[in-house]
């Protein structure tokens, strides 16, 4: 099928929208889709697609470059999602898919998200508190002078985190971020 906009290139993006309760299907080529405002993102916002080619575009599968054969054999052991299905649907099947396909698509996620490191909130009471964490807490409680020490460390850690992110050193960034959280958590409980 040809793209309904330029009528030149092959349409490989299907876009479904519901207007006044009537479902309409559109077929565009990747280039036109990019030029139009609904963009790659808009279409996937509410799972309102299927715009399956998103990842295949990002992963460059169409170029058929090196070793797609090997990739085709990959499947998630937990939920059975295959690499092909994953690329086609742009959808993970379970949390383990992240460790299976995650490393393969770090670049794509980076391209999509601009980052590879979560800095927002974390689950409550989910992880068993580590020893060092609870130790830090009790210490913080009894000795007031430590607050300024902690503040110093916090600002130091913060600049180290920013530095690490700039150089895309995510390992170091993760360490810094965890330490920051640890300190802040200690402070919160004291407050």
């Amino acid at each position, binding site marked *: 099928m040809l793209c309904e906009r330029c009528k030149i290139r092959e349409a490989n993006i299907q876009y479904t929208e519901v207007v006044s309760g009537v479902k309409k299907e559109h077929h565009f080529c990747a280039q036109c889709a990019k030029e139009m405002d609904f963009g790659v993102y808009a279409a996937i916002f509410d799972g309102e697609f299927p715009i399956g080619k998103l990842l295949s575009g990002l992963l460059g599968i169409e170029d058929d470059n090196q070793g797609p054969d090997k990739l085709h054999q990959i499947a998630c052991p937990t939920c059975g999602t295959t690499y092909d299905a994953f690329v086609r649907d742009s959808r993970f099947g379970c949390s383990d898919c992240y460790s299976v396909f995650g490393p393969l698509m770090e670049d794509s996620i980076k391209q999509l998200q*601009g980052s590879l*490191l979560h800095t927002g909130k974390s689950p409550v009471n989910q992880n068993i508190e580590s020893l060092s964490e609870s130790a830090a807490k009790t210490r913080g409680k009894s000795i007031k002078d430590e607050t300024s020490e902690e503040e110093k460390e916090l600002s130091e850690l913060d600049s180290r985190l920013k530095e690490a992110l700039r150089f895309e050193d995510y390992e170091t960034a*993760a360490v810094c971020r965890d330490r920051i959280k640890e300190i802040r958590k200690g402070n919160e409980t004291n407050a």
Partner: protein
Amino acid sequence: MHRWFEQTPAGRPGIISSRIRLARNLQEYSFPAKLDEKESGEMVHRLEFGLRDIGNFAEKNFEFSLLNEMEELDRAALKERRVLNSAALLKKNPSGILLSKEEDMGIVLNCDDHIRIQLLGAGLCLDELWDKADKIDDCINERFPYAFDDRFGYLTSFPTNVGTGLRASVVVHLPMLSQGRKFSSLIGDMSRFGASVRGVYGDVEENFGSLYEISNLKTLGQTEREIIDTVTKAAIQLTNQEMQVRKLSLQRRRIEREDEVYKSFGVLKYARRLTFRDAMIFLSQLMAALSDGLVLAKNEVSVYRLMLGIQPAVLQKISDRPLSKEDLDIARAEFIRKELPELK
């Protein structure tokens, strides 16, 4: 009981509503697309049971319904009121929703993700909505461990939601700015800034009603506050620009605008048939004129409520029989005639 959109909007002109959505998944189940009917049913049941008293924490009365057992029309109407998305409409396996009476808080179970917490409010209120969503999220998490990764954050079905799982959005009304030649480049600027802008109603060629939704493009690598800040700033930026253009239009072509809105008002008041497109365009003109003080209503009104009221499934629902497309246009005109405010 008033639903959230039935209240008259206050505050910033041009900002219609705010919405916060959090995507979460449980640790112990595969994501919804990989669950069979039995597993889906079991999980939805466990969640429903486990979250039975969640209303106490949110100070709301929630009602639970199974989406897969709901009438198609009811689901479509909920979609038009922005409570459900299309994935929820197509879902065959057991899925559910806990919804507050005012429809401003909902927890959707087993659609795109196991849990989607969503909050809606009139005007610009992302901060308040986030605070509430954050609390509900913690409440749920105390009972159900989430799928979470140290690097990727909250794990979601789609890579576009991973990290915070947060989509913050604001609906704005931009009738004049969107007419301008610079609008598409403005949208481009916004996307470089991390905010996406897309039309709420209409098709590829045309927008009906000039309502645009601004949301965050990225969900990973920023804190929730940073995301909310980005969207809030984009919304303020765009509506400020809209208001500047509008102010100019009042100075330079007031009579044209008066003429336009009174004509639109006349059609809305007297027409016997109205298509969705036409109704949205006329209501949009009325919305702008009321906000600019070009016309004054005798009693306070929410034009947005009228816009939500003329959607097909919503109209279909208040009718006692199935409506053809033509009947729908008649019902729409009737609804507007009844609900339209009087002008001073």
